[in-house]
């Protein structure tokens, strides 16, 4: 029953994004534009670009994911949809999880698809690009899940957009370290499995803990 509301909410958010395609494309456009600026600023030296690529791509992915977080619950809060969701007989945990899934599909997935292009731009090796993509696949869902907590906590607050960044960015530092570190390990000829395993562990932890935390934060914000 509650699984139904998970797909119901995710499906509705994806449909809404489909009706506003320009807004939905903004995070990935930001990701590509921001990352593309680094070769222009740092210079075209392939060795330097290859060295900074993992960090640059991960930081840009992190910022791009943050870009749309303040709208995660805000529009539903303003038009009364969120009230109706919380009053339904379904657990708010599944509602939050559905919204996080939609956010990841709209933000994280396009970043993963665009990352190989940026990898080529930064002259990364094929193995490094594969590791970068694997890391993003494990890490970007964590960003959406943790972002849900920040978005719920700052719901209805003035300057909520800035507060989300202050709350969520510190929580995302481990993802950034292990994600960029995994590519660094491959570049050094070592195995990235340790870093990717830690990213996987962070994903599992976020899957279990973030939706209940965000649901509780939503209830507090609504009352």
């Amino acid at each position, binding site marked *: *029953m509650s699984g*139904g*509301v998970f797909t*119901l909410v995710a499906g*509705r958010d994806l*449909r*809404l994004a489909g*009706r*506003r395609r320009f807004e939905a494309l903004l995070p990935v456009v930001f990701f590509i534009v921001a990352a593309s600026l680094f070769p222009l600023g740092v210079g075209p030296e392939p060795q330097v670009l290859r060295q900074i690529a993992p960090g640059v791509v991960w930081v840009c992915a992190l910022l791009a994911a943050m870009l749309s977080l303040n709208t995660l619950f805000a*529009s539903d809060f*303003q*038009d*009364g*949809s969120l*009230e*109706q*969701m*919380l*009053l*339904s*007989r*379904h657990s708010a945990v599944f509602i939050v999880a559905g919204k996080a899934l939609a956010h990841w599909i709209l933000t994280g997935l396009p970043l993963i698809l665009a990352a190989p292009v940026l990898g080529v731009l930064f002259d990364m090796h094929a193995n490094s690009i594969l590791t970068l993509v694997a890391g993003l696949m494990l890490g970007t869902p964590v960003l959406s899940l943790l972002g849900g907590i920040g978005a719920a906590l700052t719901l209805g607050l003035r300057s909520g957009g800035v507060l989300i960044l202050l709350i969520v960015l510190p929580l995302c530092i481990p993802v950034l370290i292990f994600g960029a570190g995994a590519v660094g390990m491959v570049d050094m000829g070592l195995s990235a499995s340790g870093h990717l395993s830690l990213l996987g562990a962070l994903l599992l932890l976020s899957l279990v803990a973030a939706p209940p935390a965000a649901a509780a934060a939503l209830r507090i914000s*609504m*009352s």
Partner: protein
Amino acid sequence: MNVSCRRGQEWLFRDFSFSVKPGELVWLRGQNGSGKTSLLRIVAGLSRPEAGTLTLAGGRPGAYIGHANALKDDLTVTESLVFLARLHDLESSAQGIRDALRTLAIHHRRHAIVRTLSQGQRRRVALARLALEREPSLWVLDEPFDALDVHGIEAVNRLLVAHLARGGSVLLTSHLALGLPGNLVTELELPVEGAS
């Protein structure tokens, strides 16, 4: 129910007691800022009272419709109502949705994008959800007649009467006089805290 509510340091109401029986419509009245919406949100379960207890048969109201219509500008009327119906486990078949919209005389706009509707038409779509309700539960309605024309008000009144007839109950606020038979309506005045 006996509840108290505070906004900041100021009490909106203290030890306010009332009950809503099956088949009864309670019209909650009070001055602006007296806490009508706050009380309805407490009854709906969206807020907690500062003190006191609230006992609801079935644990929660069957329907709550607040000031906001809970409609998304970019969805069609039908998509919006189907979403609300599925969210609340109500009938969501195409025929059921069409009939509900027909009850509020808004079915001719069922394929329209919500953004293109007037305020009154949006309110009708939001209230059409009530036509999908079958249980004799408690409806909590905050200014349901806002933005409605005479025909819209009559349609909502018919829904309310049918709901009361099946043993349901209603708690609502309205700044408009209710066009319902007097024997169906119990008026309840929310006092202004601190007034003599």
